[in-house]
């Protein structure tokens, strides 16, 4: 039960005493509740689940761990087996 999508905060607003934000998911924007994000800033990325931002995306951490993966040596491409066509 965990479909959360990363999106960028492009606007901050108060709606009915709740801190809300306009979130851009790369071409489509929707509102999300930012009550659970301490000090949200425009331009920051958050993970949004059922209309609520549940955490910030740590850009530095993301870059660091992705870089680590990118720098791993790769010797050869692995052969991916195809599903074996045995009908049950």
């Amino acid at each position, binding site marked *: 039960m965990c479909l959360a999508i990363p999106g960028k905060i492009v606007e901050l607003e108060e709606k009915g005493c709740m801190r809300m934000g306009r979130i851009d998911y790369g071409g489509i924007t929707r509102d999300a509740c930012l009550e659970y994000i301490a000090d949200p800033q425009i331009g920051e*990325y958050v993970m949004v689940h059922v209309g*609520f931002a*549940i955490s910030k995306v740590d850009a530095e951490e993301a870059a660091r761990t992705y870089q680590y993966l990118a720098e791993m040596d790769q010797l050869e491409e692995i052969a991916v087996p195809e599903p074996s066509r045995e009908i049950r």
Partner: protein
Amino acid sequence: MKYVDEYRDRKMANKVAAEIHRAVTRPWAIMEVCGGQTHSIVKYGIDYLLPKEVELVHGPGCPVCVTPLEMIDRAHAIARQPDVIFCSFGDMLRVPGSHGDLFQVKAAGADVRIVYTPLDCLRIAAANTSKKVVFFAIGFETTAPANAMAVWQARAQRIRNFSVLVSQVLVPPAIAGILEAPENRVQAFLGPGHVCAVMGYREYEPIAPRYRTPIVITGFEPIDLLEGTLMAVRQLEQGRTEVENQYGRAVTPDGNVDAQRMIRRVFEVCDRAWRGIGVIPKSGYRLNDEFRDFDAERMFELGSIHAPEPAICISGQVLRGLKKPHDCPAFGRECTPQNPLGATMVSAEGACAAYYNYGRHLVKVPSAAGIS
């Protein structure tokens, strides 16, 4: 999409998978807990990239699947009442109770609505003051802050015609339950990334050494799942039993304290029945006394509902990683997403449904050698 596309990169996936091939020396069974992770594995065919020694086993990570049949029947009974607007996430609409699903309840005249966020229910309640708006609040800890906020706001905005039917479940007791079972074969866990974004991962720190099982908190994209698997395999090969965090960009050790505070304000821990498994003590949330006025189970007198499960269904064993969907004689035959017999087929996240929807009832899938 940033933070999505790069985690689906083919070259990077191949690279991480190659590292797993290099690291592994003997068979291992690794369970991913979250239904979203199961879905991702099957959708991207990630298990096809892994060495045959590594077997990914699917856990009870689908709150839709583990919602007991009685609870679904209760939901349908409430939805059928003439002055009720019944709101639910899309996932629940096709889950059949003892007599059809919410679509059929809707077709018979009930007001059933799909919502994308619990806050939609408050808008519906405010616009329909003569009706009772009931929200089916299912989910893991990931969804608890949203559900809690809806109740909190309902009280703050004095919305009197809103209530929730709560079926929240917690992950750590389920993991402990799986590990406790004598027939358990799971040797490592990929922990639930978004649950931990909310709750942090401190709760898992005693579990890993107690059961000598590495736990790697993992995200949902293919690269996340591959990297999480790599980290788990390395721990297993090295004999370590720690909690590690693969999903550092979204998960911190203590999690989201504001969200946890709201959860504690509105909910309290209780025992919960898990479909296919049985009652797991202290494995769920219910509304606490302060918010009992919003509890739909109290508001609607339904009497006791008894709902027997079909005997042929082995979902309990699938949820605990003891069997795979195609080990079940009914899989793809009497039991399909159109006619689900049990927990793991009723929603798209369940292991049996995921396998079926991605065609695995038609083929053999790669599986580890030597694990019984």
